[in-house]
C-alpha cells in the first residue's frame, strides 16, 4: 500500500508502475486545505481516464470533522475505487455515519449496495481502544490500518524508529482485526533514507501478525513486498502439510504428522493463509494442490 499525494499528477500517473499492490490516493494530510478542491478534481480525472492496471485503488478521504468528507464521497464513489480509507476513526458511530453516506451515494449512482469497501485508519487513542467495535461496525470493512504519526501526537509521546511507544497499539489493532476476521495493516516507516531501519520495522510488524505495511516512498516498496510475501520455503512447507493430510485421508489415518510433528488445526490454517497469500500476489505454487 503506497501513499500518493492527491494533488501531485506526476506521482499519481506513475503510481501503477511503482510496484505496490495498492495505491492510496490521498485527499487528506498530503493536501493543503486550500487545495482540497484541486486534489479532488485531479483524483477524479485520473480515476475516470487513467489505467492503473492491477493496482488496488484506495482513496483516503478527509476526516468527518472537516467540511470536505461528504464532497469527497459524492465525487469519488461514482468512479468505483476499490476502497475508501476514512481517517481518525474513533468509534462505530463514525463508521455508521460514513456508511450511511456511502449507501446514499451508491444508491443514487446505481452502484450495488456495499460494493465499495472500507479500510478505517485508526490514529487516535480512542480509535485504538475501540478497535474491535470499529472492525465489526460494517460488512464493508476489509481491514483496519494503524496510523502512528497522529497516534503518537495524541498519546503525547515521541515517535521513534524502534516503535516501543506504539507496541500496545499494534498489538491491540492486530488482535481486534483477527477477532473480527479481517486484515491488519501497519503504519509506514517514515525515514525514506533508512532502508535497514525499514527492514527491521517491517520484519517486526510481520512477526506481530500484520498482513502488510503502508509505505510513503517508492524506495520502500520492494523491501516491504519481500518481507510480507511468503517465501518459497514457507510455500513448500504449506504444500507438504496439504500433501500429508491427503495421504493420511487416503490411508484412513486419524492423526496426521509431518517430519515427526503432529499437524493440528492451527498448522493447517497457517498453511492455508500462506498459500492463499501466495496465490493473491500471483506466485506460482504449482497445480498439485
Amino acid at each position, binding site marked *: 500500500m503506497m501513499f500518493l499525494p492527491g494533488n501531485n499528477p*506526476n506521482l499519481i500517473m506513475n503510481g501503477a508502475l511503482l510496484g505496490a499492490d495498492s495505491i492510496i490516493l490521498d485527499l487528506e494530510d498530503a493536501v493543503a486545505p486550500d487545495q482540497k478542491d*484541486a486534489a479532488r*478534481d*485531479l483524483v477524479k*480525472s*485520473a480515476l475516470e*481516464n487513467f489505467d492503473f492496471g492491477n493496482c488496488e485503488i484506495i482513496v483516503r478521504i478527509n476526516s468527518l470533522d472537516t467540511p470536505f468528507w461528504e464532497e469527497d464521497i459524492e465525487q469519488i464513489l461514482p468512479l468505483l475505487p476499490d476502497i475508501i480509507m476514512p481517517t481518525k476513526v474513533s468509534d462505530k458511530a463514525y463508521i455508521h455515519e460514513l456508511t450511511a453516506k456511502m449507501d446514499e451515494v451508491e444508491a443514487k449512482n446505481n452502484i450495488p449496495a456495499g460494493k465499495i469497501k472500507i479500510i478505517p485508519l485508526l490514529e487516535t487513542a480512542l480509535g485504538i481502544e475501540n478497535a474491535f467495535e470499529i472492525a465489526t461496525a460494517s460488512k464493508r470493512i476489509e481491514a483496519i490500518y494503524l496510523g502512528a504519526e497522529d497516534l503518537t501526537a495524541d498519546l503525547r509521546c515521541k515517535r521513534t524508529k524502534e516503535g516501543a511507544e506504539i507496541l500496545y497499539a499494534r498489538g491491540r489493532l492486530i488482535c481486534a482485526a483477527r477477532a473480527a476476521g479481517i486484515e491488519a495493516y501497519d503504519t509506514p516507516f517514515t525515514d525514506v533514507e533508512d532502508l535497514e531501519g525499514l527492514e527491521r520495522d517491517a520484519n517486526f510488524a510481520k512477526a506481530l501478525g500484520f498482513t502488510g505495511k503502508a509505505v510513503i516512498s517508492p524506495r520502500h516498496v520492494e523491501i516491504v513486498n519481500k518481507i510480507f510475501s511468503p517465501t518459497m520455503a514457507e510455500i513448500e512447507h504449506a504444500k507438504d502439510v496439504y500433501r500429508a493430510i491427503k495421504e493420511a485421508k487416503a490411508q484412513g489415518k486419524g492423526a496426521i504428522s509431518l517430519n515427526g510433528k503432529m499437524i493440528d488445526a492451527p498448522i493447517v490454517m497457517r498453511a492455508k493463509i500462506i498459500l492463499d497469500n501466495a496465490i493473491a500476489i500471483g506466485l506460482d505454487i504449482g497445480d498439485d494442490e
Partner: protein
Amino acid sequence: MTKIIKPAVSGTLESSDIMVTIEPNGEPGLKIKIKSSVDMYYHEAILNTIKNTLEELEVKDANISVVDKGALDCTIRARVITAVRRAQAQDDNAAKGAN
C-alpha cells in the same frame, strides 16, 4: 452558460502539471494562450483538451493562459475544471479550508 466572475488559478509549475489562469473577458469569446515545454509537439492537443473541457463546462467568454510542464490530458482537464469552479465561486475556498 457558465459566467467567469473573477480571476482564478489552479495547478502548479511542477513536472507533469499545468498551471491554468482564467479571467473574465471584456469581449465575447475565448482567448487561450499556451506556454508549454512540449509546445512543438502537443500545442494542438493541449488546446483541444482545454477547449473541449470549457465547452463541457459551458464557458463561452474568458481569457485563459496556461503554463504546461508536460501534463497528461486528464491533468489538463482537472486543472481547467478547478480553475473554472474557482472563477465562479463567490466565497473564498481557502477560508473554508482553513477551518
